[in-house]
Structures are given as C-alpha cells and as structure tokens.
C-alpha cells in the first residue's frame, strides 16, 4: 500500500535535481525591485519579462500614494470576511468604479481572481445545471467546476463549432447552461473568437462568462478586455477580471447586467468564507483603474513593445505563437531543453516563465515572455540580445540562423 506522502516524495525528487543549480524553476526569489521591469535575483540585476505587470503600474506614484493613504486611514488588514467582519467603504468604492468603467450596473470584487471564478461558477451552477468550459481554461475555472455538482462538459479550445455541437447534444432548453471562456489565454497567448461564441450561446440560450484576467486593461478602446475589443461586451453575461495583472494589486471582480449577481454575496462560498481585500490593495487598484481609464497611451505603448519583441524574436529565429498579444510564447518542445534555456536566461539576467507539464502537454514546453508598457527600448534591446546569445548557445535558434 502506498503511503500518503509517497506521491509528494516523487515530486520532491524531481525538484531536487535543481537543488544546486543557479536557478530552480518555481523557486526563484526576487530580492529587490529596481523598477516595474527590473528586479534583483541572486544579487544580479534581472530584466523582468515574466510578470503580468502589463501596464507597469505597480510602482506608479498615484497607485503607491493611494495605498499609503489607505493604510493611514483604514489600517493594514480587514481581519476577516466582508460577510462576517464588515465591508469597508473602499470595497464599495472599488465596486462602483468597476460599474462606471464597464457601464454595467452590478459588480462584486473578490479577494483573488481565483476566488472570483470559484464564486461565480460555484455560485451560479448547481445540481441539474451544465457548465461548458474551453479545454484550455485556467486551473481556477477547472477547480471551480470540480467544486460544483453541475455537469461539466469541455469543448475544443477556441472552437465555437465544438461548443455548438456540445450544446446541441444537451436535452431541453438552454437556461441552465453556463459557457466559460477566457478573453486572452495565458499559455498560448491566443484570443477567444468571442463574436462567434456569443452567437452560439445566444442560439442555444446559454449564459456566457468571459474571464478577462489577462485582457483587462490591455484590450479594447477603454481597456475593458477582449469582449469590448470584439464589440460584444453587451452580450456577455458575466465578465470576470483580476487585479493582479494590469491593475497592480491582488483580487478579482465580476461585472454583469444581471441584478441576480448581487445574490452571490449570500451564496458564493469563496466570497463568504475568506478574508476580504486589504485597504492598501483596494485603494491601489482603484487608483490603477483611474490611470487605465485616463491613459490609453499606456496600451499604445504596450502594443508597440509587443510588436518590437515579436519581430525581434522572429529575427533571432525563435518559433513564437501566432497571435499578437502581450503574452509571447516561445515554443521549445523538449522539457529538458526548455528548463536549460530558462536557467541560462535567468543566469544571464532575463526572467521569463517556464511552462512544463502538467501546465502543458509533454513535449510541448514553452518559455513565455510577457510584455509591459513599462519596458524601455533599452530593456527590450538587452532582452533580445540575451535571447539571441543563449538561444544560439543552446541550439534553440540554430536551425533558422544557419
């Protein structure tokens, strides 16, 4: 009989192979923040191309000042959940801010983006309901479906046709169905065909939830995400967003035109049974929202940086994802090669994200670079220099260069 801890020992053994290496995946410690896109790792200045700081607002003076002022006025913590221990004015201020920004009447904020999905999916769907999820959905969406007793059906990634077939096979009218997709997918960096997905949902009477975690602040004329960008925001029933990416904080939000969203405060376990967002965090996010709304040029700078990075990577000879987005996946394939490349890049002063199984299929490993509006031209040049040198050294780009 296997011991409970045997499973963990096996994983520990795998992790131990990096114990003495200069860099161990998943255990990188950032000792100091030099700027929105530059940090110190193991005493070395390191370019940060692996954060979700898409608009570079984590050190923006307005955000930092708002957070400082909130600590002075409200203290450091909320000591518990909104349900049990009280809602601060700051919680309601931020919810109003999201309602105004989205032009939707209802918003609820959550302590994390993960809990936003748990609350929405868990709060909306129960026995007799059906949740249809894109197969590339984030773990928070899958985990939410695991906590629900609703039937869960997957459909092929970004395939409205696959979704249509799955909806057609279900018996009866569609009022008990929730379709869950993301705006911008975090591993492949590709965008959902929301217009087509909206059409399929409408034709079958299904509700649609779009998680705009990575696209909030980065897509759309007002920065509202991919649904706004594709002109279907009014047709999306529930938009979920996160604060930990463009909005420089921690937390999640859902906005909706359905008044029933308000009832989630009484039924969503991940809302009720958890500590609420801290005052400094709420005030910082509120300031970040104001900046995103007032400064569309931040998005323009982000997209200019994205084009520069993608062009540079192609010229060096990396194979990158097809979709132009703030997430730039470099397709490496072999796990050992991906780990070696990731380590060498970090040692040379460039931090990117390493994606290996179980986060991707075996043999389909990816290094993911994320762009920020705050990346300077000099930082982009340095990053591309490092990628060219290390890529050639490890033979990742050789085929194209030779």
């Amino acid at each position, binding site marked *: 009989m296997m011991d409970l801890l045997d499973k963990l020992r096996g994983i520990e053994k795998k992790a131990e192979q990096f114990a003495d290496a200069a860099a161990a995946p998943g255990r990188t410690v950032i000792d100091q923040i030099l700027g929105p896109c530059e940090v110190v790792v193991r005493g070395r200045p390191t370019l940060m191309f692996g954060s979700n700081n898409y608009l570079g607002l984590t050190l923006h003076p307005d955000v930092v000042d708002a957070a400082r002022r909130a600590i002075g006025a409200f203290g450091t913590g909320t000591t518990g959940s909104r349900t049990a221990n009280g809602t601060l004015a700051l919680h309601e201020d931020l919810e109003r801010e999201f309602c105004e920004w989205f032009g939707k009447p209802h918003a609820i904020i959550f302590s994390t983006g993960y809990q936003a999905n748990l609350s929405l999916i868990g709060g909306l769907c129960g026995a007799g309901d059906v949740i249809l999820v894109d197969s590339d959905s984030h773990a928070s969406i899958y985990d939410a479906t695991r906590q629900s007793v609703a039937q869960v059906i997957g459909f*092929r990634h970004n395939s409205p046709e696959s979704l249509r077939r799955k909806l057609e096979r279900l018996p009866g009218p569609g009022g008990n169905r929730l379709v869950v997709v993301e705006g911008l997918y975090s591993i492949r960096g590709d965008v959902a065909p929301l217009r087509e997905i909206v059409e399929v949902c409408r034709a079958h009477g299904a509700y649609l939830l779009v998680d705009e975690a990575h696209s909030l602040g980065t897509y759309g004329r007002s920065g509202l995400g991919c649904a706004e960008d594709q002109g279907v925001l009014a047709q999306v029933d529930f938009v979920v967003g996160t604060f930990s990416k463009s909005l420089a904080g921690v937390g999640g939000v859902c906005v909706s035109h359905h008044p029933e969203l308000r009832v989630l405060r009484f039924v969503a376990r991940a809302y009720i049974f958890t500590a609420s967002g801290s005052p400094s965090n709420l005030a910082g996010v509120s300031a970040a929202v104001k900046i995103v709304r007032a400064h569309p040029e931040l998005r323009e700078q982000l997209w200019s940086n994205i084009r520069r990075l993608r062009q540079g990577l192609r010229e060096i000879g990396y194979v990158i994802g097809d979709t132009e987005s703030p997430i730039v996946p470099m397709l490496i394939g072999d796990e050992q090669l991906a780990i070696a490349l990731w380590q060498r890049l970090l040692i040379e002063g460039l931090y990117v994200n390493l994606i290996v199984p179980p986060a991707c*299929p075996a*043999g389909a490993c990816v290094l993911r670079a994320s762009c920020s509006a705050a990346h300077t031209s000099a930082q982009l040049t340095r990053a591309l220099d490092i990628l060219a040198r290390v890529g050639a050294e490890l033979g990742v780009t050789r085929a194209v260069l030779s």
Partner: protein
Amino acid sequence: MSHQPLSSIEEGVIEVLKSVARRPVEPTLASDLIADLGFDSVRVLEVIAELEDRFDISIPLNEVPATRTVAEVVALVAPLVLERSSA
C-alpha cells in the same frame, strides 16, 4: 434503431488511446491510463475530446477523475454511445 456492439466501442477507445499517445503503446482493457500508458492530465483531456468527436457524444468531465483503466473508459463511453444510438 441501431446499437453499436460493445466490442467496436472497445476497439474505438483503444484506437483513440493509441493515436493520442506520443509513443507506441499497446493498451488492453486492464491498462491504467497513467501508470501503464504514461498519460498526464492534459493528455487525458485530449483523449476525452477525441472520444467525443469519434463517437459524437459529450463525456461529463466530472466522471473523468475516477476513470483510471481502459475498461473504465469503455464503461464511461458505452452508455453514452448507446443512448445516442437509441435517441
């Protein structure tokens, strides 16, 4: 009303498993998807998607974590195929 015989479902499941595996595998009904065939959770989801397309069914993902062997996959798929055939 036509009922697909179970053996053809078994054959279909085994074909899908072979096509989704990245290396040559010879699944039997007793094979464990993870321990014997080396599938990880992403690969299992791919198996589900392929089975759904092949048999024109929808497999509830709620049932998947408890499905470990090829025989259990067949037991998951068969009633859905029969239900569709008799619909």
